[in-house]
């Protein structure tokens, strides 16, 4: 990763693209690195907020142990489930070939 927290290198973008399974061209790498750098810079402004007295949290509400009992509820009808799929076959979601990896 780059040393400057507010910018992304071409290599960073290439790495992220690979993790996201996106094919990105050389020209796009440069463009996205610039664009994402701007986004990061904007988001980085939250670091200016005074937080020394604030306890880190991942939730806005101080709740714990919100559970549901182990009870089965109806699932969606399959036609409805597959209706939103770009492609379906044999009652399953059809997806493009998975490249370069084994299941």
């Amino acid at each position, binding site marked *: 990763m780059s040393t400057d927290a507010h910018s992304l290198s071409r290599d960073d973008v290439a*790495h992220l693209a690979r*993790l*996201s*399974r996106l094919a990105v061209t050389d020209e796009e790498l440069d463009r996205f690195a610039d664009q994402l750098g701007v986004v990061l810079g904007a988001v980085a402004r939250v670091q200016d907020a005074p937080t020394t007295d604030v306890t880190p949290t*991942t*939730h806005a*509400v101080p*709740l*714990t*142990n*919100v*559970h*549901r*009992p*182990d*009870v*089965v*509820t*109806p*699932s*969606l009808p*399959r036609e409805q*489930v*597959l209706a*939103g799929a770009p492609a379906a*076959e*044999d*009652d*399953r*979601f*059809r*997806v*493009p*070939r*998975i490249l*370069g*990896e*084994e*299941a």
Partner: protein
Amino acid sequence: MSTDRLLEFDDVVSRYEPVFGLETHVELGTASKMFCGCATTFGAEPNTQTCPVCLALPGALPVANAAAIEATIRIGLALGCRIATWCRFARKNYFYPDIPKGFQTSQYDEPLCTAGHLDVEVDGETYRVEIERVHLEEDTGKNLHVGGATGRIHGADHSLVDFNRAGIPLVEIVTRPVAGVGAKAPEVARAYVAELREILLALGVSEVRMERGNLRCDVNTSLAPTGSLEWGTRTETKNVNSLRSVERSVRYEMRRQAALLDDGERILQETRHFHEDTGSTSAGRSKEEATDYRYFPEPDLVPMAPDTDWVEQLRADLPELPAARRARLREEWGLSDTEMAWLVNAGALGLVSDTVAAGADPADARKWWLGELSRRAKDAGVELGDLAVTPAQVAELTQLVAEGTVNDQLARQVLDGVLAGEGSPRQVVDSRGLAVMGDSDELGAAVDAAIAGAPDVVEKVRGGKTAALGALVGAVMKETRGKADAATVRRMLEERVLGG
């Protein structure tokens, strides 16, 4: 086909020290999924057990299954773990078609359970396997690769995804590296998974049917030259899904890595796939680093904070664990360590125990399960526990023998009937007419017929050659198709040939 060069196992362990570790995934047997109410029934029609939550439709929010959390804590307690007083779920981000959200809801730096151990026995020696962590996550969907000759991705044209499994609660149990066991490494690895499976069964948290993928292992293996202070580079063999395969995969990786190290080559840190048919492994993708998963605390779920009193209650309510149970039963049944090991290795311990509980004598129960029933299972190519006979029925069978209703030979015919689904042993005795014939008119007639049919033999017996009586006994047994009791027949013959 594997083209790996392999070093002989004896040579491997004479020069190298193996280290292995296991990540075991257990599908919990909850009725509903981890974060939604969809059913978890195995073998359901594809995509019939899905909803907006487990399909990751926009706006859907997860709510954690209380029973899954409880089961995870009970697993942790059974493994002697510390239970977290506060912890969170985390998102493990990666893209794969079987993971609809683009992340798996898992746990990262705050697992529910940490720092436990499991003692396993191999050849009378006890080995302690340290448990690093036990955490709760969710299973993925199932990919079906279409167009490839082997059902694997290579050569596949496209893939089909069934999300019924997506979101089923999954517990991951991670060991610390196990070192210093040398040549025993493959067996200790297997024994660990076997014992873990027993514990999960005793807890009743999962069906742990490995052939259904209820329990799946990733096996890490590395080698270092004997005496080396540093461990070697490890490989991770994925989806090792039987006890035998766990042992074979460790053995294979040890032999493969040793051959490379012997040639001065480096071991690549990589994921490998295990091939059930050949017992070999092959290279998979290079491993993603933890940072690549960009873990972060799950904002859609609130933290878990198991109440200490509740956890202590769960601890107090744990069932008798397999190791303690084995020790107790060994004592109660007066068995040697070896006899006990046979019973355990045959997968018959629970069956014998249940048979005894149903009223059978321990020795009789053992005799049936390790003898006749083991043979039947082997002939049928099924597990002992999958035979169509219950421990209660076996107990009834032993009682029929004990009370003299049937002899051993008839009892085997009774078993035929039970296995054929003809009902309980007593019902089969009645319907097939298999009861031993007592000193009845029918048997008397058969005895008389035998005497009348062999005057020469009768003469010999009367002349003092009592051994010749055996031929008459045999004739009666044949006539009654084994239903007579040989001792009764002999007594009746003696009375009628020699008696007053």
